[in-house]
């Protein structure tokens, strides 16, 4: 397996709350890893560790290591803004910043200091095409992002992340707040995207995990109970707890 | 590196208010305390004669302390019931359209310059008081009534916040027990909001105690200790405001000494108010 990200005995705590407990896990390059489990099991903590957003909590502590392309993301030479541009994140709630569609999509690039209008134009178009939003908004790029529907805003959020040409996409329940049609659009998009990106997604259902994941990890109480490639976790789980959860007997 | 210097600059600006408070405290005390030390604290506070230009001069500020107390408590008699009633009205009774009108109106009440209020007291209320109740008109009563209105916005804003902050569940619990609306207000809302309301009253008190120019215009500025609300008086603030214009030497020092006393009173009130507001610094509207 070609490994993009590697968790190595990684433990994360907010104050006294242990969010992730001794996680050791590979994330394969140009594939989709689905991280699922009950609420509070540490899925968001897992994602937010990869781009070091977890450190925004004042009482965050961690042990162990996470490596991207073999290099520790905690190495002193790592610049946080750059790490977050390499591993861009999309949240469960669609967020259109109060600015135009164009400014939303080009936001990350402008933060990085990109001022060249043609470069920005090209990046905006490419990102919007990739997130399948281009045809819907190409005539009104100057209108406010807040005017878009929820599903469109979420694809806008994805476009905003894609515009950075990241290596990794971190998607924290990106379809949790969406209707089935928007959800299907985004799932289709993921299949196309994984040719170029490493994707870690928290699916909003077990079905979605099975549909989009090239590999899956089941989290419970901050621990990775089981990790498996393909549909293994859903077809033939090895751990009793995984089996209970995927068959809906979890309680 | 840029981030670090920005963070440092912001830290410096954050100290602005604290530094200002420190400077104010230091310079007021430095200018006023020597005279208090010379006269003696007790003589200064309890002396009933203020004659700073006589030989020998007399520096007793009891008349001003008494005047300030009269005026402050008088204004509370007007301002507290009215302010509480308006706050209850705005949260509980006002139809939506009227609530929409009330809010900017109260804000305007707070925005009108105090000299305008003083002027209304001087030209409108004082003659009425003189004609109906007797006395010179320019009096504690005139000042207290107008000041009562001047502190309304403070009392209303903070009480309103406090009443609004009562959790819906608390209110619904009382309604479920079959209480009438008025019983909910008196039995649940006001007691639950009590500390906020008290904080509002204390801050209103601070405003009344600190008001200067309007008081000068309304109170008659007599150095005799008032024994009736219809008599003129002078206050800590009005005396400073009036005499600073021409005072020099020891006289000026005595005015700063009066400022020290006022400052200490106000700080005590502020400290009291903060202890009554559970979360200082949040959601208190600036009046």
């Amino acid at each position: 397996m070609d490994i993009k990200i590697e968790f190595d005995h990684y433990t994360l705590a907010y104050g006294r709350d242990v969010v992730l407990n001794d996680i050791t896990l590979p994330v394969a390059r140009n594939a989709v890893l689905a991280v699922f489990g009950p609420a509070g099991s540490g899925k968001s903590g897992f994602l937010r560790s990869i781009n070091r957003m977890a450190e925004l909590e004042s009482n965050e502590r961690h042990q162990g290591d996470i490596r991207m392309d073999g290099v520790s993301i905690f190495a002193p030479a790592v610049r946080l803004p750059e790490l977050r541009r390499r591993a861009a994140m999309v949240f469960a709630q669609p967020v259109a910043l109060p600015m135009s569609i164009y400014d939303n999509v080009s936001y990350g690039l402008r933060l990085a200091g990109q001022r060249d209008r043609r470069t920005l134009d090209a990046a905006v178009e490419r990102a919007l095409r990739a997130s399948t939003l281009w045809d819907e908004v190409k005539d009104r790029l100057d209108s406010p992002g807040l005017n878009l529907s929820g599903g469109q805003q979420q694809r806008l959020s994805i476009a905003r992340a894609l515009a950075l040409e990241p290596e990794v996409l971190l998607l924290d329940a990106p379809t949790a707040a969406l209707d089935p049609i928007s959800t299907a659009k985004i799932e289709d998009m993921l299949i196309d995207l994984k040719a170029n990106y490493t994707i870690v997604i928290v699916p909003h259902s077990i079905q979605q995990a099975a549909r989009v994941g090239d590999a899956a990890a089941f989290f419970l109480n901050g621990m990775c109970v089981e990790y498996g490639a393909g549909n293994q976790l859903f077809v033939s789980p090895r751990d009793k707890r995984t089996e209970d959860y995927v068959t809906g007997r979890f309680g | 590196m840029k981030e670090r210097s920005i963070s440092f600059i912001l830290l410096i600006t954050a100290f602005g208010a604290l530094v200002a408070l420190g400077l104010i405290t230091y310079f007021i005390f430095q200018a006023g305390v020597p005279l208090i030390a010379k006269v003696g604290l007790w003589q200064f506070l309890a002396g009933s004669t203020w004659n700073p230009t006589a030989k020998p001069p007399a520096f007793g500020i009891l008349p001003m302390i008494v005047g300030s107390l009269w005026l402050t408590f008088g204004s509370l008699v007007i301002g507290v019931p009215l302010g509480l009633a308006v706050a209850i009205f705005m949260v509980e009774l006002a139809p939506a359209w009227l609530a929409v009108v009330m809010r900017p109106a109260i804000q305007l009440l707070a925005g009108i310059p105090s000299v305008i209020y003083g002027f209304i007291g001087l030209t409108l209320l004082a003659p009425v008081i003189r004609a109906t109740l007797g006395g010179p008109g320019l009096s504690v009563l005139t000042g207290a009534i107008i000041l009562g209105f001047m502190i309304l916005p403070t009392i209303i804003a903070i009480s309103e916040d406090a009443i609004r902050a009562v959790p819906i569940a608390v209110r619904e619990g009382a309604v479920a027990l079959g209480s009438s609306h008025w019983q909910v207000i008196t039995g649940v809302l006001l007691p639950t909001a009590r500390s906020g309301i008290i904080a509002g009253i204390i801050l209103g008190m601070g405003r009344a105690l600190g008001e200067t120019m309007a008081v000068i215009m309304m109170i008659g500025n007599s150095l005799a200790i008032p024994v009736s609300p219809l008599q003129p008086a002078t206050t800590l603030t009005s005396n400073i405001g009036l005499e600073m214009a021409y005072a020099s030497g020891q006289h000026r020092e005595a005015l700063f000494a009066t400022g020290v006393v006022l400052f200490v009173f106000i700080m005590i009130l502020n400290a009291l108010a903060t202890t009554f507001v559970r979360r200082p610094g949040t959601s208190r509207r600036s009046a």
Partner: protein
Amino acid sequence: MTTARTQRFAFGCIWLAAVFTLAVLALVVGLIMVRGLPSLSIGFLTGTPENLGRDGGIFPTIVGTIVLGLVSLLIATPLGIGSAIYLTEYTHESLLTRAIRFGTESLAGVPSIIFGLFGFIFFVTYLQMGWSILAGGLTLALMVLPTIIRTTEEAIRTVPQSYRNVSYSLGATRWQMVTTAVLPSALPGIITGIILAFGRAVSETAAVIFTAGTALNLPKSVFSPVRTMAVHFYILAVEGISLEKAYATGAVLIVTVLIINVIASSLITRLVRKQVRR
């Protein structure tokens, strides 16, 4: 049915109190306007005062008011916004923030006459600025600082946390996050605070009269003394110079305060809409 009767009586009283309060406000505003408007004219606004203000206009006091207000905002706005940003975005609650908050709260409660005394002894005398726009502006700046800090803090706190998360997740530094995600959304609230602070500066008398002076000339520099409208109004009324001119000046003051209040309360909606359109 005594509870029903009690309630009806109590609610009657409360309605009365509310109507009474509005009536008093209307009376104050109405009286000054009715008595002041007749003597208002362009000449009054643009003319220079003569005979201590008994005749002529109030032009220098209008200039004095605006200049003093602007100077105070020029000083207080960066300080206040910086302070609010630090408290909300750069630090967690600690002993330090509690001390800073205590300073802000206390400063807000300091009466204006104390500011006047302080400004006189510190800026006018100790720093030898004399009665001047600079001394008055600095004094006023300290006075309105808490207003700006508080309104900015409140405006910043209403910005959705998700904006900050999005900004950080796309590689923003803290300062970039503040300037691109927080401040634009908080702007209407911040501007409202600045306008309210200007209103306080316009209304102020006690802190101004001992620091900026009472000179009736047009100022030549920031070291010139000025007289503001509020101070002029006070002097006209208290020294019995001219009741007619006092009413007219009062009317201008009230109109100014009205305009400031209307702008402050309408600005929020207007700016929010504009922000969406951009």
